[in-house]
């Protein structure tokens, strides 16, 4: 694809669904629930670890309105995973819909379904459970080779190549070494050796987890769900119920945000088993509390780093080890952790040696999953903090240190599947951010009042664009009456605007108005297969499927016209509206006339389908810089200004790329300063609502400013890479360094709350 002027790509096009969403039209899962659907509620474990010795549901069943109470005795005994990933799944099969063992506070004990919530609540109180309470593992540093085993069941299935060992509480493990790490580190003039901790922060999308299920006229189960992964949900529900996939259909309406949370089938299997057992429609929406206590948050990780440099600041070697806490179940456990190394080390070029190793352990905490950034956030917090610490140790400007070491276009990445930086403007992003924040004027800090100091800090970030060789994006195009197209997609627009972005691309490829592109998705019975919307894949992978599919469609249009015009295809051209003879433009046929003729039986109805998998995953890059104000009397850290510059290749939609960036940055600011995960010593999650778990409001986040440096990624549609995830990675290390520059205090765990700063200032 060459760079030509586009009518839609690159513009700030309004989202196709904006009008419906902004006028409050029914659009989401809960807006369509059948009136007769059974209300489904989950009775949850009060213990972090216990065996159900006895469970008596007889009294609960007597409550008027209660339809069914399901316990572990009633569910299939074949284990599965809820992680939405391409088959064969890397995450271990360690789940049952309900299990004899409960492995964290909130793990479901029974499913109750009835005609309304009140009867379900009453029934749950009448279920008598006798537990054998077991000693839990709550500290993930104590888990590996502990005598307590989280998964001792024989039916546990670990998958090859992940390093899974249930008898060691090990969900996954690996080690990769290049060069003589110890030898090179020993010769370094400077060494930073520290460990960094990120907690299991929550996506907190505004729409809770929700799904409803019913049987259709063919006796198949329909699952309507707020999901990023409709095709994976089909497989997961089929595994959970132990029924063929042909018996299941998954429909995704509009989704009220996902950020990775809905890349795990968190709630679908519960209404599904109710419908399976009763044949009645069933509906489950998690309360906000359940979203916190039984969701699928970021993996808590401790990243240990040894970073060595020579006397000039040139990085020589890095040793990076990650301990990841997958919680009670292994969803995304084996895969998130890999990004802590691949997406951090690869920002730096010319290392003589490096080691990247990890262990992912089970604990009796809530099960973790996918959250925007997917391990890269944790790894980048650690490595970027270490780089900042090295700069301070060497007394040089952290930007200068990065300029000496960062990856440039054309360089082979340090640790990135053997790939090279085919498009990379990381250097320009850093330069731009330096200007935007007025770094040279403000670094490291300045006083604004006797006890108030403002300071700046910065960090870089990268991510991927889809999973190379794994993610599949497919689209189909139908040419309809009057010459409008239906673009059928299998990826999930979760508010990101991918339906619009893909339509922009299609309209530019086909040379038509965007009005002429109708987007349809997602229904697993009708949409072409797509891995789903995760791993920053949609624009890059599915976008390329759109480009390919449009080329096929245009050829088909020309071929059909050639039959009707009785002219050879090579002598025809198509301008989006009309097919005509190149030698004599008056000889031709308009698209609507062509379709009319085809629909009158003079040819074949036109339909094209294409899929795309990329052998590479070209990273988007960015730099971010924070200015914060620290109150030295109270310890409060106030974000003043956050600036960011992103290289996402070609910007497909100027508005949506900007909003993605701003949104990701503010989630990152939330993780850095406010969002805390606190448990009681018995493993009960205390931060389980928006009063305790404080996400940023519009008065907390300061100013956020975003700019772009465009590159052209040849392997991407119109030169595009991804944007969705990279944007969350810079705030934590940038803010931590700004706080250091203001106070001299180094925080290696998030969030940096006023209490922590205050206490540390007292000790100083």
């Amino acid at each position: 694809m060459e760079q030509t002027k586009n009518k839609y790509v690159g513009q700030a096009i309004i989202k196709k669904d904006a009008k419906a969403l902004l006028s409050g039209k029914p659009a989401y899962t809960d807006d369509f629930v059948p009136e007769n659907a059974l209300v489904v509620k989950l009775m949850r474990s009060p213990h972090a670890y216990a065996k159900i010795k006895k469970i008596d549901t007889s009294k609960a069943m007597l409550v008027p309105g209660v339809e069914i109470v399901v316990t572990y005795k009633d569910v299939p005994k074949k284990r599965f995973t809820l992680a939405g990933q391409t088959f064969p799944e890397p995450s271990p099969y360690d789940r049952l819909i309900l299990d004899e063992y409960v492995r964290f506070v909130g793990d479901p004990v029974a499913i109750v379904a009835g005609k309304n919530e009140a009867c379900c609540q009453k029934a749950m109180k009448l279920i008598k459970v006798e537990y054998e309470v077991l000693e839990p593992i709550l500290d993930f540093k104590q888990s590996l080779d502990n005598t307590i085993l989280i998964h001792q069941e024989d039916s546990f299935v670990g998958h090859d190549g992940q390093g899974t060992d249930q008898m060691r509480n090990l969900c996954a493990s690996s080690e990769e070494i290049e060069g003589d790490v110890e030898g090179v580190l020993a010769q370094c003039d400077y060494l930073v050796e520290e460990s960094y901790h990120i907690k299991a922060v929550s996506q907190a999308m505004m729409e809770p987890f929700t799904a409803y299920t019913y049987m259709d006229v063919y006796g198949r189960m329909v699952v309507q769900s707020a999901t990023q992964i409709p095709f994976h949900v089909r497989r997961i529900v089929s595994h959970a119920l132990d029924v063929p996939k042909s018996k299941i259909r998954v429909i995704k309406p509009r989704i009220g945000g996902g950020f990775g949370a809905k890349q795990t089938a968190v709630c679908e299997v519960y209404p599904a088993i109710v419908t399976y057992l009763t044949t009645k429609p069933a509906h489950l929406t998690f309360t906000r509390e359940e979203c916190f206590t039984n969701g699928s948050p970021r993996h808590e990780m401790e990243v240990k780093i040894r970073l060595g440099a020579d006397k000039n600041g040139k990085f020589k070697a890095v040793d990076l080890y990650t301990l990841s806490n997958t919680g009670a179940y292994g969803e995304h456990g084996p895969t998130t952790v890999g990004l802590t190394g691949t997406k951090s080390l690869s920002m730096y070029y010319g290392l003589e040696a490096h080691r990247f190793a990890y262990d992912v352990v089970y604990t009796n905490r809530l099960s973790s999953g996918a959250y925007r950034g997917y391990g890269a956030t944790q790894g980048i917090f650690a490595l970027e903090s270490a780089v900042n610490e090295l700069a301070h140790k060497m007394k040089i400007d952290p930007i200068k240190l990065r300029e000496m070491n960062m990856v440039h276009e054309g360089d082979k990445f340090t640790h990135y599947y053997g790939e090279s930086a085919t498009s990379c403007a990381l250097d320009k992003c850093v330069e731009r951010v330096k200007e935007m924040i007025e770094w040279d004027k403000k670094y490291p800090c300045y006083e604004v009042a006797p006890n108030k100091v403002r300071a700046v800090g910065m960090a870089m970030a990268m991510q991927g664009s889809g999973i190379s060789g794994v993610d599949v994006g497919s689209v189909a195009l139908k040419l309809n009456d009057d010459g409008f197209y239906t673009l059928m997609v299998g990826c999930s627009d979760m508010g990101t605007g991918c339906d619009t972005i893909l339509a922009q691309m299609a309209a530019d490829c086909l040379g038509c108005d965007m009005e002429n592109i109708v987007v349809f998705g997602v229904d697993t019975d009708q949409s072409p297969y797509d891995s789903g919307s995760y791993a920053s894949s949609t624009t890059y992978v599915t976008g390329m499927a759109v480009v390919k599919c449009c080329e096929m469609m245009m050829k088909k249009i020309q071929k059909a016209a050639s039959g009707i015009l009785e002219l050879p295809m090579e002598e025809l051209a198509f301008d989006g509206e009309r097919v005509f003879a190149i030698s004599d433009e008056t000889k031709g046929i308009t698209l609507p006339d062509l379709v009319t003729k085809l629909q009158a039986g003079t040819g074949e109805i036109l339909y094209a389908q294409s899929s795309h998998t990329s052998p590479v995953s070209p990273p988007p890059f960015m730099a971010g810089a924070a200015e914060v104000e620290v109150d030295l009397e109270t310890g409060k850290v106030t974000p003043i200004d956050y600036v960011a510059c992103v290289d996402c290749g070609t910007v497909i939609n100027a508005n949506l790329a900007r909003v993605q960036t701003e949104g990701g940055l503010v989630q990152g600011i939330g993780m850095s300063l406010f969002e805390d995960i606190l448990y009681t010593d018995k493993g009960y999650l205390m931060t389980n609502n928006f009063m305790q778990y404080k996400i940023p409001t519009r008065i907390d986040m300061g100013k956020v400013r975003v700019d772009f440096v465009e590159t052209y990624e040849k392997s991407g549609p119109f030169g595009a890479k991804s944007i969705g995830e990279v944007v969350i990675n810079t705030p934590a290390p940038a803010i931590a360094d700004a706080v250091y520059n203001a106070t001299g205090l180094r925080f290696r765990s998030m969030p940096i709350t006023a209490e922590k700063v205050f206490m540390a200032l007292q000790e100083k």
Partner: protein
Amino acid sequence: MKITVTLNGKRIEAEITPDMMLLDFVRSQGMKSVKRGCDTGNCGLCTLWLDDKPVLSCSTLAARANGKKVTTLEGVQEEAKEFSDFLAGEGADQCGFCSPGFIMAVLALKKENPNPTAEEMKEYLAGNLCRCTGYQSQYRALCKYFGIQEV
């Protein structure tokens, strides 16, 4: 118990249970724009007007609406259009789940204080959470709507 409510200009009588929340009541009457985002009155998604004043319908008993006027986004489509267009123009709708409650709060602010300062505007709307946008695009739309100079 029976209540009489003027819902979006239409007088209706309905049988409710005493513990029914206004949020569930208006949704049962087909007003699906009103969303539930939390259990603790923190998110603002369920904002609607009770006698023209914004309230959180998740923590207001439906019984309290007896004899009163209840207005949801469905009832103010014309009035909402100008601001909604600004939001759409900024790409600030994103997932859209928080939009109806947010728009109801913005229109209420416009009635109460047609020319707020940027600070007053942010304070008034601080109870309306959004996780997608980081608020910046909403801020740009608000500035256009209220005629405030962006800073």
